[in-house]
């Protein structure tokens, strides 16, 4: 047993509690199941909710991918991956989505559609979409139970009155199975449609707020919108209306991050680093085949 910890750091009772919460989260899609959320050796807000889910799910025959804002190499992903490798001897880790059985992610859902046998764990800072309109959790729980989202819709309507459009860029409120509205974690709008009729199970863990919720596979996930103001994802068109391409791999179908060059000009690149690598690899192969 590496470093003298139980496999998965958590004790077996903690895992059982998380596992029972997961089953209820799946059975009541979108409902935030409370759980005790153990103290982890990192600050709350650094992905402890997602981490506790991953540690309760993972076994020696799993291959894990950890993503932070689309990248396997940014600091949160590296730290979490190293911690899980240290406390779960025998597991494999990967940066390739296609090899992973378990994916923990912060702020992105991978571009490539997930496979049914994969499980996606998302780290959640703020689980309750109603918190902007109702400060009391007791009242919010009743509103959720009754599927009463009138005040949330008024908030969206006020946005339209003020700005002619709903201004929520990430954490877009999404209605699951025609009942509960969830905060889908800080994923961009671009990723929200991936929750609808997803091939894979998606689990959400909020460590500080002590909640677990789920979007089961093949379940309706509908972003809140109005008939005359439909939901739309981020546009990556330039001033001429042409879709921007990734400066590295040339993809025109991915979510792009904007970077500033030293001369002040802008550069766009895939946020999903694995997708960018795959596209680059594929285009090199095509090029090689063309010149062969």
């Amino acid at each position, binding site marked *: 047993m590496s470093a003298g910890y139980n496999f998965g750091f958590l004790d*077996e009772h903690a895992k059982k509690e998380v596992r029972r919460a997961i*089953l209820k989260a*799946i059975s009541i899609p979108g409902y935030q199941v409370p759980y005790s959320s153990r103290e982890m050796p990192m600050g709350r807000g650094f992905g402890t909710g997602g981490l506790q889910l991953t540690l309760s799910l993972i*076994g020696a025959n799993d291959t894990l991918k950890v993503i932070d804002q689309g990248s396997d190499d940014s600091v949160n992903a590296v730290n979490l991956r190293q911690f899980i490798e240290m406390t779960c001897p025998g597991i494999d880790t990967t940066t390739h989505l296609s090899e992973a059985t378990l994916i923990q992610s912060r702020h992105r859902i991978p571009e490539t559609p997930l496979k049914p046998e994969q499980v996606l764990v998302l780290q959640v800072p703020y689980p309750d979409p109603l918190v902007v309109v109702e400060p009391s959790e007791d009242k919010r*729980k009743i509103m959720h139970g009754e599927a009463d989202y009138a005040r949330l819709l008024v908030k969206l309507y006020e946005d339209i009155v003020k700005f002619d459009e709903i201004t929520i860029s990430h954490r877009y409120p999404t209605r699951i199975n025609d009942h509960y509205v969830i905060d889908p974690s800080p994923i961009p709008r671009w990723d929200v449609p991936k929750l609808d009729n997803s091939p894979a199970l998606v689990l959400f863990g909020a460590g500080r707020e002590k909640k677990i919720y789920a979007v*089961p596979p*093949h379940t309706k996930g509908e972003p809140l919108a109005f008939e005359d103001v439909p939901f739309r994802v981020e546009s990556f068109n330039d001033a001429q209306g042409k879709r921007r391409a990734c400066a590295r791999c040339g993809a025109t179908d991915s979510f792009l991050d904007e970077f500033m060059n030293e001369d002040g000009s802008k550069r766009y690149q895939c946020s999903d680093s694995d997708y960018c690598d795959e596209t680059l690899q594929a285009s090199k192969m095509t090029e090689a085949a063309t010149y062969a």
Partner: protein
Amino acid sequence: MNNHLNTTLQPTLPTTLLSIWQADTQQRAFRKIMNAFARPGVIETLESEALLLTLATLLDGATTFADFDGILSEHDMARLEVATATAEQARFVLTHGEAAPAFTPSLGTLESPDMGATILLKIQAIGSGHRLKLTGPGVDGACEVAVNGLHPAWITAHQSWNSAFPLGVDFLLVAEHQVMALPRTTRIEGIK
């Protein structure tokens, strides 16, 4: 952790039964049980007798359990180390699926629907017998599954207990090494 109980109560327990109390066996079992809940109609085969392995995987002293028909042995009850409650109040209830339900389980509350019970129904076989058509979250369109030894009153009860979502109960059918879940969101129709 539970090894001392084994030596004092059942010194001759076969090793296949011993493994169900081990963490890695329970982790593998949980992943299959989770997939069953996420995909109603999918039959998962566990690595040993599903009933005891499922209970060992999910229960501990922090939850409550009712063995309505007295299916478990005293030894197994002792090893589960779970608090017992009445079938009306317990978070987990184990019962035979052959007879019609003789209790009303907890359906949870509007604020906390997760307090609705998980009912483990021991039946003869999953994969043969009466055919059921399932629709709802986790099912891609619709699917068919067959069950043997499930009293039709349980299907009616599933419908009536789950008629006011989010309140309700979640079923886990258990037969030999197999499990299949019917969570509260699943709509079940019998096929003649």
